[in-house]
Each structure stands twice: as C-alpha cells, then as structure tokens.
C-alpha cells in the first residue's frame, strides 16, 4: 500500500509540477507543510490557519486567509468562496508567489505578471464586482494603520480618498461632467503598478519549510 501510494504520488507531483511551475522537490515540501497544517487531513479549512501564531500579528491576516478560499484565484472561471480546499488549490494559490523564471519569453513573463497583479486585485476587491471602490480602499488603509494604537478613522479616510483621487487623475485623463468614477478597474490597477517591478518583489522562497512534528 505504501509503495503503491508513493508511486501514485510521484506521478501526481510531476503532473502538478508542469501545471503550476514548481519543482517536484518544492511540491514535496509544500505537501508536507499542507499535511502539517491540516493535521494529516485532506482538506484545509479556515480554522487550520489559526495554528500559525505569527499570522495573528499580521494586519491583513483575514485578507490573506480569504485569498486561499477565493475561487477566482484557482485559475478557473469560478466565483465566490469555498469553505475548504485541497492540496491542488493550495498549490495553485502558492504558485502566484513563484519568482519569474528568467528563461521565459517576454509573452509568458507578461502573462505571469498579469496573473500576479490579478491576485492582488482580487485581494482588494472583496465584493467581486470587478472594481475597487472607495469603501474597499478605505478598509485596506484602515487595516494598515490599525497596527498602531491610536486608531484614527478620519486620517484613514483622507488617505484613502487622496489615493483614489490620484488613481483617477492617473488613469482617466478626460472625464465628462456626467461621468463618475466608480472605482479602480483592473486596467487602472495595472497602471498604478507600471513603475514597480512586481516580478522582482512578489516572490517567496520555497525551500527549508518548517514542518515540525504534528503532535503539539
């Protein structure tokens, strides 16, 4: 049973490797980590993330956890959220954080970049209407400022509004008197990121993952 299962797993890893871009070694490590989080189960749920104590200190903790259960990140055409995910979805979400392979063509690099940006966009756009409204933006800024003790709602609002104003002036050059700015669409979002090389920044190292024993 053990030998058969390991052979089966190997094939699975190869298949996943070609689909997601990880190396089989990395997939093995991630699988071990997955098992550690789910306590050897098959499906990952939101409460499994509570195990990670360091995540509690993160201001955008809930957004990160939600990103794992967001169907839009599974590279299908799904919408909405799920309550539990399997290893494959876990891997797909993780693949957004792979470093850009220098051997890719310019096209592939561009599409990779678009996918990363789309992941970020989905994180902001919680109600899934295709644009980031003032509310959502304000929420993000509040969350960022909330790390300090004096919560200043007014300031958060001001900053978020100033930022929106900036995006509007950047993205929409000409606005008729009747038009109003509904929110940041994906195209405008990409424009903000034009100056920042997201391929250089958005990556995590997938080696030496901590997979201590499950019995705690």
């Amino acid at each position, binding site marked *: 049973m053990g030998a058969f299962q390991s052979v089966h797993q190997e094939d699975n890893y190869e298949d996943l490797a070609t689909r997601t871009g990880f190396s089989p070694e990395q997939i093995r490590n991630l699988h071990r980590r997955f098992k550690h989080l789910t306590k050897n189960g098959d499906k990952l749920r939101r409460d499994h993330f509570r195990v990670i104590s360091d995540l509690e200190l993160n201001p955008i903790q809930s957004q990160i956890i939600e990103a794992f259960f967001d169907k839009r990140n599974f590279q299908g055409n799904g919408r909405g959220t799920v309550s539990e995910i399997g290893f494959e979805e876990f891997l797909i979400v993780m693949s957004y954080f792979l470093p850009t392979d220098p051997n890719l063509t310019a096209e592939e690099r561009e599409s990779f970049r678009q996918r990363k940006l789309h992941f970020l966009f989905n994180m902001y756009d919680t109600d899934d209407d295709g644009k980031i*409204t003032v509310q959502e933006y304000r929420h993000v800024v509040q969350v960022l400022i909330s790390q300090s003790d004096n919560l200043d709602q007014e300031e958060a609002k001001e900053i978020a509004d100033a930022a929106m104003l900036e995006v509007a002036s950047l993205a929409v050059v000409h606005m008729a008197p009747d038009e109003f700015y509904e929110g940041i669409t994906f195209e405008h979002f990409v424009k903000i990121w034009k100056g920042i090389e997201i391929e*250089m920044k958005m990556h995590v190292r997938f080696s030496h993952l901590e997979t201590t024993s499950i019995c705690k």
Partner: protein
Amino acid sequence: MCRWQWDVGLVILLLMSNARPACGGGTAADALNGTQRQWNGTERTPFQHDHANNSKKTFPVLSFNYDHVRTHFQISLWILLAFLMKLGLQLIPRLSSIVPESCLLIVVGLLVGLVIQVVGEEPPVLDSEFFFLCLLPPIILDAGYFLPLRPFMENLGTILMFAVLGTLWNAFFVGGLLYGVCQVDSAHLAGVDLLACLLFGSMVSAVDPVAVLAVFEEIHINELLFILVFGESLLNDAVTVVLYHLLEEYAGVGSVSAQDVGLGVLSFLVVSLGGVLVGAIFGVMAAFTSRFTLHNRVIEPLFVFLYSYMAYLSAEVFHLSGIMALIACGATMHPYVEANVSHKSHTTIKYFLKMWSSVSETLIFIFLGVSTVAGPHLWNWTFVTVTILLCLVARVLGVVGLTFIINKFRVIKLTTKDQFIVAYGGLRGAIAFSLGFLLKKEHFPMRNLFLTAIITLIFFTVFVQGMTIRPLVDLLAVKRKQGSKHSINEEIHTQVLDHLLTGVAHVCGQYGHHHWRDKLTRLDKQYVKKWLIAGERSEEPQLIAFYRTLAVNQALELLESGGDMLPSAGPSTNSLETLKSKIQENDQSLARISKQRKEEIRRILRMTLQNTEQKLHSYSQHTQDEAWTLQILHRKQAEMGRKISIFLADAAKLQVSPVQRRARLASGELRETASSPLTVDQCISTFFEPRHIFNIEKIPLRTTNQKCYKMTLCKPSNDKIVSQFIYTHSV
C-alpha cells in the same frame, strides 16, 4: 574662451603664492608646519608692531602681509580653482556625455601638475593623512546617510560574498602570480619578494567607492546592480585594512606563520564588526540628540555631521574600519533624524552632504592627476602590464566563480549581463594610491615601482572602463533605474505587498528574510522609536508619516514655485481676480480635474495656513504672550477668511473633485444632516496635513438655497482653534 584665460590666470596666481620664500614648504600639506615654525621663530603675531624699534616710520596706509594667510589662501585657492575648472568643463557641450567627469578632472589635474612643474615648482602630492581624514569621510557619509537600506539588506549576503571572498581572491591571485612573474629573470624584478607582492595585491584588489560612485551615478543603472557594486566597494574596506596592516607588519620580518593568519582572520572580524558597532552607537546617540532639538533647529545639521565624523575618527583610533563605521552611523541615524528634524534642516543636511562630497571628489581626482606628474616614478613595462592584465582576469574569474555559488542561494538569479556589469564596474581609485603612498621607503625599496603601477591601473580603470561602460550598458540593454515618483498609492501597495509576503511566508512555514524583516520592524516600532523620536511622531504609523511628508513637500514645492506671491496679510485680491477670470475662461472644462487649478488652490490654501503658522511661531519667539497673539491672528484670519470664502465658494462650485463627490453618492453616504463633511472637505483634506483640519460642519440655513459651511482649523498639538471660516456656496 575667456574662462580658460581666467583659469590660467588663477593657476599663475597659485604658483606665485607657492613660490613665496617664507618658512613654509612648497606643499599645502606642510604649510601648516610652516606657519608653526614661523610662530615659534619670531613669537610675534602679525598684528603687533615692533616696539623695540623707536624710529618713527610713516604709517602705512596700505601694506602687504601675505605670510599669515598663506596656508588658508592656498587651500581656498586650490578649491576655487578646482571648481572653476569643473564649471569650465561643462561648457564644452558634448564632452561630458562621452567622458565621465572623473576622467576629465584627472586630465585637468595632469595639466595643472605639468604647468606647475614647467614653472619649476614642486607640485603638491596627495598627502595620505589629508586624504583619509578630510577628503574621504564626506563622500562616505553622503553615501551612508542616503543608502537605500532595503535593497542593501536584501542583497547583503551577495554583497558580503563579493566584498570579502572576492577581494581576498583578487589579492592573492594578483599577488601570487605577480611574484611568479617577478621571479622570471628577464624582468629585472628580483628584488620583489612574495610578501611585498601580496601587499601590492591587497592594495590593488579593492574596488574603490569614490570611483564607482563617480561613474555609476552618471549611467543610472538599475538599483540591484548599483547596490551590488557599491555595497561591495564599501564593505571591502575591512578586508583591505586587515590585509594591508597584516602584510605591512610582516613584510619587514619576511615571513608569516599560520598563527598570524589565524590572528588575521580574528582581526578581520573585530575590524568589521567593531567598526559597525562604533558607527551604530554614534548613530543612536545622534538620533537621541536630535530628539531634543525642537527649540534649536538651526544646529540640527551640525549634530549629524559631527557625530558621524566622530564615529569615523573613533574607529580609526582603534584601527577599525572607518568606512564601515561611517556607513553604519549614517544608516542608523537616518530614519530617526528624518522624523525629528525640521524640513529646512533636512534640506540643509542633504545639500551640505552633497556639496562636501562633491568638493572631496573633485579634489581627489585633481590631486590624483597632479600627483602623477609629481611623484617619483619607476616604470617597468612588465610589471605594469602584468598588473593590469592580472587585475582584469582576477576580477572576471572572481565574479563568475562567486556568482555560480551565490546563485544557488538567491531567489532572483544574477544573469550573465549582471555579472558582466559587476565585473566591469570594479574600478580602482584613490584609496589604492593613498595606501601605496603610505608605504615607507625604508621597508619597501620598490615603493616607486608600486606607485607607478597603481597609478597606471587607476588610470586604466577610470579612463578605459569608465568611458566604455556607458555605451556598453546601452548596447547590452541593461535595465535602467526607474524614475520613482513615489505616490501615496505606491506606498499603500508596497506596504500591503510586504504584509502579504510575510503572511504567505508564514503560511508556508518559511522563516526567512520576510519574517525577520517584519519582526525587526515591529521591534523598532515598539521600543526603539519611542526612545529616539520626539513627541507624538513616535507613534505615527508609517503610512501617515509618509502622507504627511508628501503633502508638506508638495505644498512647499508649489509655494516655492509661486514664491513671489507671499503677501504680508493674506492672499492679495489681485491673485483672486486673476484666478477668477481664469476660472471663468475654463468654463467648458469645469468637471475635469485640472492639475494646474488643483495646484493653485493648494498654493493659496497652503499659504494661509503657513502664514498662520509662521506668525504664531515668530510671535511666540518674541512676545510669548499667546492670548495677545491669538487675538491679532483672529483679526487677520477673519480678514483672510472673508477673502477665502469667496474663493472657496468658487472652488467648491467648480467640482474640483467630482470623483469624490460621486463616489460618495454611489456609496450612499451623503446625508443632508449637519456635521457631515462634503466635497470641499475632500478637496481641502487632500491638500492639507491631515491633522490640521478639525471639522467642517454644515450649518443649515433655511432662508436660502445656499449651503453654509463652517471650517474650523485647529493646531494639532493643543487643539487650540486657530481660525474659523464660514463660507457659503450655492449648488
């Protein structure tokens, strides 16, 4: 043309001053000794008369006494001359785009040296003491204070590998093979033994920060490559210091034992870590001092400079790495000092550092040129050509070999193009020369040989490599530096991305660089900031601090650009008139967010507030009667308020921010009750510092259709109401 004649005239003047038969020497460096001798010899100040001589002389209406200002005159003249040359060089249009400035300055130095020699004087040589204690620190401090800490820390492993292992490899490769060449009989170099060769290798192996900065700053290469080469040039100082002292000590003895090598390694650790520690201590002290300079803004820059220089000197006392101390000091104090000092001090610090480092750099290159003409030379074709060849080969091999190892650990691998630039950018400079100059002739009979070779090497790297690197960068299409506007959006997104990456790393169980950076930031915020930053700024989240800085910078910029508009009591009616007419002109494009108009509004709104601040501040300096000042202020404010109200009414009507207004409508937040801020609020809050606007209340007026608003401005520190404006606007 006229400028060149002027420069030549200055040179002649310099020579004349040099040629005075006073008791000083011919060099600026020991001119101080000269004046010393003069003091001891005659014990007479220049201003005393000779009372022993009783015969009455006619009182001199105009007299000439050059000796007592001689040193200072010479030094000032040199510096003035250097910069006039620099200005003159920029007049030649195409030259500065082909040839990097460092090359031009060396050529100028050569010419000056030649002229001095032709006249018959002895040209001054670059004194090592002067170089290490006066010329080098400003450049390093400038680099350290403005060091982009984030990319530096992210690539620290790579930088250390290049700095330590790369320099060691260079030194031993060059030294060892050079010794082999010297053994060949035909070269007539038998007098050079192994240790001397290794010492020579250690002098020429280090990449020089001055030369790298001078060349790389002009080609605007991308941040990663710049920080790799530049970081290497800074951190290899520790290696150079240890190797140099070790080999210099033992070259006299003739042999080095294994114990000495072990002690050398220990010394390296002490030198580098000790240097960093000394620098960090002084940096923390500087940050702590800057916390208390609230009432004494003028001397703030002084603390920055003095603490850094003390750090450098203290490190030099213990033979620790002065450069690393200076970098550590600058980098440590930077975030805290920036949060504490006033805007003007920040500008002062920045420009003083730039100015001093520019002076130093210019002087260094010119002196290099002059020293070439001056120094005793011993030219040996074999030695020199082999040196240059070996240095190039060693550098290329070192970089390629190390990158092969480093890429196994890096997430973003270094490509071949990157490696080429790193290898090609390893320029040598004045530090190598100064180290050679420090050698004593008694211990090293081949000192002149070494100096000649070092100078030739420096010339080769600066001229050949410096000039060709720009076309090569274009040819290879290396990524250039992105012009960063750094908007509020970028800041928000960068912060979100940081937290996201940290979070994902934690989910993966990856306790690497993201985790430690996050932890360090949190510790910094919890403990360190409370100690080192004054007042309430210590608890300010980074985003707000950034936003505040951005708003202030923008407003001040606009204020400066429209600077002649500063009135004594509020905006003049003239400006309002012109603005109104302009507004009426642009009737068609009202809904557009015109940047120009936004700026005008910003400027005027900012001016009122700044005037308020200025007046409060200046009054409190002299009268210290706050009640009285506030009264005066209220009167003026009321006046301004009336004028402002008309203007604001127009502004609001113009829908400066249709975006915001509609956004609010869409979100359903617009309520027609009192104290709900509306569009003007958004307009103003975008342009002011966040804490200055306290409240905008809507006062319902039943009589007309007009909406009436009351805007209350408060001082952030004590919540005193500075002014209140009441204005109306009709929808």
